[in-house]
């Protein structure tokens, strides 16, 4: 449904943020994982018509996004990383304002739309509260409410759960999961669990390039038998770093648990484990480092 073909973007200072990104994104939730500076936000902005990439083509359901951005905007819902619009107006007033700007002209239609969205995002009880007084989670839910005005078929959410407490995060992800059943939802994040819990397909972006693409379970299967775990003393860590390709380390009860990537049993007390999406993600980044 959304096709990106060799999309590249070079900023005026010479930074190549995107390097020939080619993706096919079907209906449903699609996760875009990557470390900070991977190019995720640049890609999100390019799809959201906020930034024209230097090269390549983006098409959504027959719409040439770069040639007809205004057409895509008629079916786009976008929640940026920094929503940024917090004037001294209430949630209801702001949502109503955005509904007008999205072309919901009839007062009755608009009332119904705004009220439904406020209920859906669990903001009805605070609809008269000023946006400037909203907590981070409430702002994100408001952000998704405004993104849903006009029943968009392409929804882009950029780092939506950053800074949310676990309860807010859970509530937000449930909301996204509901929405993502019938439309294209692109979830850009560096939180692996968000993608693992929600997305039918995903890509890992790093250094502006797509490092991995597929269904999370397929990607997990592809690393099966290559991830090994061992609990070591923290002082041994540097020694292990020199000998193995360590994917991740975690401190558990004062001991360090390491995961390594190895094609065969490394011996040395390592146990084979069932890989998780986090291991897939870290192995993709490790391969990138190795290639560099």
């Amino acid at each position, binding site marked *: 449904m959304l096709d990106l073909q060799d999309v590249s973007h070079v900023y005026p200072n010479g930074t190549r943020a995107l390097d020939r990104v080619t993706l096919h994104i079907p209906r449903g939730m699609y996760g875009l994982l990557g470390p900070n500076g991977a190019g995720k936000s640049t890609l999100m*902005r390019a799809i*959201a*018509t*906020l*930034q*024209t990439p230097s090269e390549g083509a983006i098409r*959504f*359901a*027959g*719409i*040439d996004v*770069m*040639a007809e*951005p*205004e*057409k895509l*905007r*008629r*079916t*786009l819902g*976008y929640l*940026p990383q920094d*929503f*940024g*619009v*917090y*004037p*001294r*107006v209430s949630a209801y*007033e702001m949502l109503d*304002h*955005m509904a*007008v*700007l*999205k*072309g*919901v*002209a009839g007062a009755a239609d608009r009332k119904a739309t705004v009220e439904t969205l406020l209920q859906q995002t669990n903001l009805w009880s605070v609809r008269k509260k000023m946006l400037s007084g909203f907590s981070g989670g409430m702002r994100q839910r408001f952000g998704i409410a405004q993104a849903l005005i*006009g*029943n968009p*078929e*392409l929804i882009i959410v950029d780092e939506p759960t950053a800074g949310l407490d676990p309860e807010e995060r859970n509530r937000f992800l449930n909301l996204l999961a509901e929405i993502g059943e019938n439309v294209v939802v692109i979830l850009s994040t560096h939180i692996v669990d968000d993608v693992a819990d929600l997305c039918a397909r995903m890509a890992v972006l790093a250094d502006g390039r797509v490092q991995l693409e597929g269904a999370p379970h397929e990607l997990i299967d592809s690393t099966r038998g290559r991830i090994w775990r061992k609990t070591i003393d923290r002082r041994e860590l540097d020694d292990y770093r020199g000998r193995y390709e360590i994917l991740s380390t975690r401190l558990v009860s004062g001991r360090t648990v390491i995961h390594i990537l190895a094609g065969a049993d490394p011996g040395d007390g390592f146990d084979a484990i069932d890989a998780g999406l986090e291991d897939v993600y870290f192995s993709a980044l490790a391969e990138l480092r190795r290639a560099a």
Partner: protein
Amino acid sequence: MTDVTLHATPRERDVMREQVRFIALALRRETLVLAVVLALVTIRIVFAIVRHCAASWFDGDPSLAITIASFLFPFAVWRGQKRFGPAFLWTLPVDRGRLALARVFAGWVWLMAALVVVAAWRWGLALVAGLSPIMFTFAGATAMYLFGSAWILGLRHPLRWLIGATGGFLLLGNLVEALGRTPSGEWRIVTWSSALRWAVYGPYGLRTLLSSHGIFHAAENAAATWRTLPGFAQWITTTLSWLGAGLLALWLATLRHRERRRY
């Protein structure tokens, strides 16, 4: 052809009307502050009227205050709004340049409304006091509002530029004061540059733009005042020139908010 449902784009008049409504909502606090200030000043003026010493309240020329307020008003209109870079609002199906102009228009509507209230308030109190107040020009306020809007839309850091310009202006002001006026009443520093002199004291300069108050003042001291007033043709030419310059500045500023596309 596309196989998704595209919702309607908003009509121009709906966008315009909505901006007017929304700016009113966003400026509620400022409106309240203005109302409180007017109420407090009204109480003081009423006391002065009762004691027959209200003349000083209506002698002053409010043009400078109105000019400054009109120039700064766009800062309130655009507060909290990301104007540059990939601003979220630009993903809405409204052309960004037109949306910016609709906001400028909405701000102007409310500025004019506020000035009408202030003028009516001043005029009404003066009538009660049996005096004739010096008034201000709406066209001058509009020109300054246009320049203020161009300032906001054209500069990434308008406040920094404003602080810098104000600092420079104050320094210049001190210099101006130190140098004093010429025998004909013109600031000496302005007369050193013929271009500056023309812009300020010339037949179509700032003094002419802001001189409509004289029309009202003339009621009290007609003979003396009418002699110093610009002719109507001169005043209207000046006003239109400054409004044109303001619109040009605004247009140049909105060029920075054009949609960029590849094809």
